[in-house]
Structures are given as structure tokens and as C-alpha cells.
């Protein structure tokens, strides 16, 4: 192996490490806390992911999430909440509202149909 090979090898390993860290490292998502009177409401924009993707709510009170998908890519056409057995199709540009009541504090992930885009509802 010559010098170039060593450089490429080192760079390759570094890039691989960066990719793994970038995608699987601990993410600081966008947090949203919701107003505390009556129904807790939050709007989520769907475009290559969920903004916000961490939504803080209080357990025991109804939660209303409104998703708006701002892309036509098929990847995000569905939103799934496995813990609540809830899912909905998100037609591009349309507001889709889902309602829950979370009784127990905890983390409730949501994702697209393939699990590639992820977000979390955190009930406290």
C-alpha cells in the first residue's frame, strides 16, 4: 500500500465514522411543548422528517396533533403511532389531525410507514 492508499483508508474510515455518528448519534430534536389549557395542540410539519420531532405533553390530558406534509415524496405519505394503533395517510398540503389521550407518562415514538422518519411524543 502506498501513501495515497493509506490516506484514502484513513479518510474512508473517518467518513464512515462520521456517517454513523451523524445518523445514529444522539440527536437533539426540535422540541415543542404544548399549551396547557384544555386540549394540548401541536402542529407538525412533515418534510424529510418531522418538525418538531420531540413533542412534550402532559399525561392524562387530550393531545391533538396536526400534521401537514409539505412534500410529495412517497416516503412520508403515512404517519404511524404504533403504541396507539393509530395511523393516517397524509395527503400533500392537507392538514391531518390525530387525537390521543395518553394516560401513562413515557415516550411514544411515531414514524413514517417504513420507520425511516421518526419522532417522539413525550408524556410527563
Amino acid at each position, binding site marked *: 500500500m502506498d501513501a495515497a492508499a493509506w490516506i484514502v483508508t484513513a479518510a474512508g474510515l473517518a467518513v464512515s465514522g462520521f456517517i*454513523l455518528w451523524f445518523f445514529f448519534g444522539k440527536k437533539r430534536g426540535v422540541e415543542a411543548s404544548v399549551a396547557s389549557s384544555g386540549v394540548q395542540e401541536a402542529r407538525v410539519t412533515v418534510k*424529510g422528517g418531522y418538525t418538531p420531532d420531540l413533542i412534550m405533553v402532559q399525561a392524562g390530558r387530550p393531545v391533538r396533533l396536526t400534521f401537514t406534509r409539505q412534500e410529495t415524496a412517497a416516503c412520508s405519505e403515512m404517519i404511524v403511532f404504533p403504541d396507539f*394503533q393509530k*395511523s393516517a395517510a397524509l395527503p400533500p398540503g392537507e392538514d391531518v389531525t390525530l387525537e390521543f389521550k395518553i394516560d401513562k407518562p413515557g415516550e411514544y415514538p411515531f414514524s413514517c410507514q417504513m420507520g*425511516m422518519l421518526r419522532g417522539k411524543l413525550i408524556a410527563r
Partner: protein
Amino acid sequence: MGIMATDPVCGMEIDEEAAAASRSYDGATFCFCSDACAARFDAAPQQYLPAALRGEHQAAEPAAVDAAEELRLPISGMTCHHCAETIRVAVAALPGVMAAHVNHAAGEGTVRYDPSRIEVPRIIEAIEAKGFQTGVLKLTVGIAGMHCASCVTKVEGALGRVRGVLAATVDLATETARVSYLPAETSVAAIEAAIAANGYRPKKGEEPGTPSEQEAREREYHGLLAKFWFAAVISLPVIILGYPSYFPGLRDLSFSSIRLIWGGLGLLTLPVLFWSGQHFFTGAVAALRHRSANMNTLIALGTSAAWLYSTVVVLAPSIFPEGNVEPFYDVVAVVIALVVLGQALELRAKGRTSEAIQKLIGLQAKTARVLRDGREQDIPVEEVLRGDVVIVRPGQKVPVDGEVIEGSSTVDESMITGESIPVEKHAGDEVIGATLNKTGSFRFKATKVGKETMLAQIVKMVQEAQSSKAPIARLVDVISGYFVPVVMVIGVLTFVVWFDFGPSPRVVYALITAVTVLIIACPCALGLATPMSLMVGIGKGAEHGILIRNGEALETAQRIGAVVLDKTGTITVGEPSLTDVRVSEGFTDDEVLRLAASVERGSEHPLGEAIVRGAEGRGLSLEAAEGFQAIPGHGVEARVQGRHVLLGNLKLLRQRGIEPGPLAEASAALADDGKTPMFVAIDGRAAGIIAVADTVKADSVAAIQALKRLGLEVIMLTGDNARTAAAIGRQVRIDRVLAEVLPEDKAQNVHLLQAEGKVVAMVGDGINDAPALAQADVGLAIGTGTDVAIEAADITLIKGSLRGVVHAIAISRATMRNIKQNLFGAFIYNALGIPIAAGVLYPFFGLLLSPIIAGAAMAFSSVTVVSNANRLRRFTMREV
């Protein structure tokens, strides 16, 4: 006690109905405890108005009073007067609201408000905040003729001014307006007229919701096709000029002219990259912002790496010491063309997977003829309110669910219940929306409209089920979360390995293999494998009156080993009917039956009703009975046409000193067959036996045979005595009969079967059997028409036939087989494709994949998955 009101003069709380006097002022009603208070009010009403109203009058110019508007609003969810009062108080407290009235019985509210101080959406918000629903409808209407942002503002303004329109947003890109409006205040026609009045064309004949989705799909499809053709056309010269040595005339060009040509190609492929492939880049960037990656990331990375490398080759060939380097712009253009084409085909195929649900939605009637203000008028079906009187003529669709109040007809309900024989409808009968009226005209009162109708519920359930997850996809979900970044790492490592150990020119090999890895990996095929098949399979079920709750139910249904059938109402019709008439010498069948039925006429006992129906079915005319008397626990007696008729059990006969003779033996035989025999004595002589029994449904025997052919153990569960149960078991050829099971023990019995290690399905009516249905691995509720408790079970059979069980299992097996094929294909594709692309076969066979082949493979892998799912549409319910 009625509604409480406050006397505005003395402030006393009084019952509205018991008020001494009342006055109507400015649209609001005031009640008074005494005439004296009323007189004081009459003298100076302004002084006594409640604060909300008084403020209004003091502050407002006289013109503002004229500007007050009245809003009529349907409100649902009110169960009592109290609810109405809650809403009234909440609305009246809003600033700008002058008066509010809420009528609980009519499900309607009337609000007088000042439009300059409060907007209608605020009022609606206040009502919804109290937990009630307002009848606000949403409409999507297409608009042609808009070309700029100012058009958008103009149309939005025009729509906003239509009375009854709460909000209107216009989207220029999709050329549609989304309008929420109050059906009681305005109509679709008025909204369209407002658009037309401003010089734009509302696109007629559009239904809200689905077609716009279909249109969006169509638009995207054509967009993708255009991008494909553009990329394809550019690809041609790029391929030819990219390999000058293969073409006479080109091969003789000097290196510097070839470099010039290559440079031109680089420029030519840029629009392919950034127009045809635009969505790969925007998608990749959007995902990167969320620190996630998808298919777009891979394609964007692969093609841009190819383009950048090629450009470096053209601009600075000297930095590659090995020489002999060539650009590969062709990879950029061709891969984008292929992947875009694949996406277009995939979109097309996906459209077909939702065909079943489109068909269901298409069943909905478009308009309804209702009686309003004493006039018959045609209105869009969305505007029908609960309580409206709807008129249906022969050949028309029933628009919503309701109860017939006048007229009679036969209605074809096959589209909902699967029952092919039209059903007779008279006053008091239920009608289901979307069914077809055949012969007569009738009027009915709408009881369920909009989202509450049976059809809407079916559609909702099917849509939810289609988008649910099957447990089999869990592994895929785990994999797809890691897939793309891992592929990127594999791509990088491939580059490194080829660069370090590969043949010369090593940069070229390293780059080509890395790009090929990025391009061949296809997360979409994996991700689409399960949902596409589920979509088609669950839709297929819905077409046959089988509603499958979710992917999990469908997956479990395929593993069922034992089917437990409830007897009454599942295997049998569920109500007794006349089966046998035996007579003594000197009597005829018809005579005995006619007299017995005459006695039972007007009886509400199910056995009596069965005898009357049986007699009527034979065309016998019944007579009036006199001196009818019920003998509790034994039978009945009466006089018919001067003859004394006694109907009852053997004990009653003996009590009256009547000898049954040979009839006693016949009775025992009938009882052995699970029937209920009743003795008839006429004028003190044993005349005959009439037997009734809960009869087996016409197709139960065949369905049970089919279940056995599927290799399932069939078990009957019933609360009946062992003798009756065994008799029915023999008739339908079920060997294992669990009789005398108390309703509360049914679930326990299911549990015992599960303990035998079987996956158990329980079939029952969904109401009495709910605990057993819940205990079973798969609970199937069976019923007809609106009776079906859709919510109760994993699978609902609307047809009411046991055949549905066979079909449900057959569909689940076919769907799961399809899912497994898809998953297997997608896994194998990626598991073999990625290593081959990385070049693992090169050391042994010298085999390397071209990135173009990888692009083609990737594009068509997902198309294949969707097309395979579409094969399920051809699944037929042939004899299993």
C-alpha cells in the same frame, strides 16, 4: 325541571317554563319572575340587558345594530338540555355575540353576532372547546384560470365574503380551494357561483377529498414522465459521445477535442441532474436536516459523485497518474432517467392498489332530494342534516342512513351487506346510505349523515386497516431505520478496498463500485413489500363484505388452527321457524296449522310468531281468535270459528285429560332432532303437532365443509342442551360440539382450546359473544346490515354468512403469501445486489456491475413489489 333563566330585573333564577312572563327583545328571550319585573323591563329594557348585550347597545352606532348577523349552526353531541345550556352560556359570553339560542331537540344553535367584532370561526371554536361538534363541512373545489398570487388573494376574498363560508384557502400549485362552510347557510352552488363571479372557472363534478388526491397522483405521474423523457433524450447523445472510441468519425478526434465534447456533456447533464433529478436532491436535503437519510439520499449521492468525478476528469485529467481515465456522465443521465421512470411506474401501480377503497367511496350518492321550507330541493349529499326528510325515487340511491317514514319500496343493499336479494322497506324500517332503491318511492328521516353513516364507517375502517402495520413487517422496520446510512458506509468502504487492493486505474474502479453500491440499494422495495399487499388484501376483503381491522388480524387469521362457531345466529338463522306439522287421523295439516296460527296471531312469543309466519308462508288465511288465554309455562288456548283450540306441551294435554296417542312418539322424535314440538288439541281431541326450530342458514353446511377442507378444526359452541346441540351438529357435520355453555363461560372455553396449543378463531354475533371474541386470537363478528358491531371484532362479516369466514381466511392466506414473496424478493435483492455491486464476484469471475444496470435493477425492484401486490386484485373467492 326545564331550562333555568335569570330574571334580568331582579336577578332571580327561575325555570323558563314556569316564568310569569317573558319578553322578546333584540332576538333574545327574557323571562321574569313576576309581572311587576316584566313591567319594569318594558319601561326601560336597555337598563336591564345583560352586560354582554348592554355593552353592545351602548357602544354600537345604530348602523352596527343593523349589521348584526344571525348564524344558524347545526350542533351535534348534545345529549340533554343541560348541554344546550352549556353551549348557550359559552357562546353568549363571547364579546360581539348579542344573543345565543341552542335547541337540543333540533340539534341546532342560533347566534346573533356583530361581524365587525367577532368572526364565525371564534364562535365555532367556543362550541368545540366545550366538546361538541358543529356541522362545518369542508369542500375542495378545483379552480381554473388562476395564474398568480393576486388571483389567489382575489378568490380567497370572494369566498370569504360568501355568507356561511368560515375559511377559504386557495392553493395555486394544485389549483384548488379548500373551503369550510356551514351547510345550513350556504351551498356548494353558491360557493362555485362566487368563484365564477370573479372570472375564474370552478371545476364542476368534483367530489371533495378523493378525486383531488387522485388528481394529485395523476399530476405527479405526468410530472415524473416529463422528467423521464427529458433525461432519456439527453441520455442518448451523452452515451454516444461519452464513448468516442466506439464510433467511427469520433474515434479519430484529438484528445483535446474529445475533452471539449466531454465538457459539453457535463453541461448537458446538469439540467438532468437538477431538473429531472431535482426531487432526489430536495428530498435528500430535507432528510439531512433531520439527520436522517432515505432513497433520495442514495440516488443524489451516487449521481452527484459520478458527475463530480467526471468533471474533475475533464477539467484536470493530469491528476490521475494512471492515465486512461474517462468521464461517465452517461451514468448520471441514464440512472436518473431509469429511477424516475421506475418511480412513475410505481406511482401508477400504487394507484391501482387503492382501487377497492375508491370503489367504496364511489358508492356514495352525490346529491339528495330533501324537503326544506316545504319545498323539495336537490342538495349535495354533504349538506344533508340529521333530521332532514329525504325523498327517494325508484332507481335512485339512498343518500344517507335513516328511517323510512312514508311509502314503501324494495332496496338493493348488496353493495353494503352483500345480500343479493332486494330487501322490502316500509315505514319504520332502516335504510342504509349508498344502497339502491328499486321499485317504489319513499321518504325517510335522516338519522346518520356525513361521517356517521355506515358507508363512511366502513370506508374509515378499511382506510385505517390499510395503513396499519402487520407484525411481519417489524423486522423490515428495524432494518429500514438503519438501511441507508449502512449502505452509505458500505459504499465508502467499497471505495477504500478497491482503491487499496483493486486493479489500475484504481480511482476509476473504486468510484464506479462505490456509486454502484449507492444506486443498487433499494430501501423502497423493502418498505413497500408489506403495506402494498396489505392495501390490496384488505381492500379485496372489503369488496366481499369482510372488514379486517388491521394487519395484525390479517396475519393471525392465516395461522388459525381451530374455528369456534357460536350456534345461534351464526350457524343458524337465530330465530325459530316452522319445520314440521304432524296430524292425527281426521285432521289435515292446513287445518291444524291455520287454527293454531289464528290462536297465536298477535302473539309476541318467538315460537308463536314462527307458527304465524309459517302459516302465512303457506298462504293460509288466519281468523280472529276469541277468549285468548295464556297458560303460563304450558301454552295458550282460544276459540277460533267456534272451535276450542289448545296449544301447548304434553303436560298441558295430560292436565286437560287429552290422550296424545301416537303423537307422543312423533313428538319425542322431533325433539331428538333438536326441534321444539307443540301439541295442538281441537275441541278436546289431540289433533296434531307443530314443530318449530332455529333453522340452519342455507350455506352453513357448505361453509363448514370448506373450513374443514382448509384443514381447520371446526367446533360448535352453544348454550343449548346437549340433545339440540348434537342434532344441529349432525346437520352441519360438526363433530366437536360444546353444549350447555353459559354465556359467561364462552370465553373460558375459547381459552381452554388455546391451551391445547391452537390458534383459535371465534365467530359470533359481536354483542353477546364479545368476551369470547376478545379472548380468541381472531374474533369474527357476523351480522347483517346496520346491526353489525363493526367496533367489536378483529374481522367483521357484513354478509351474515359463514362463507365469510372461509373467505376471510382465504384472503388472509393469499395476502400473507404475497407479503412473504415481496419480502423475500426485496431482502434477496438487496442482500445479493449490494455485495455484487461492491464487486465481491470480481476476484472469482471478473464480474462487475455497471452503475447503469444497478440503476435499472433498483428502479424495477420497487415496481416489481407493487406489481406483485397488484396480482392479489385478481384473487377470486372461488370454492376453497
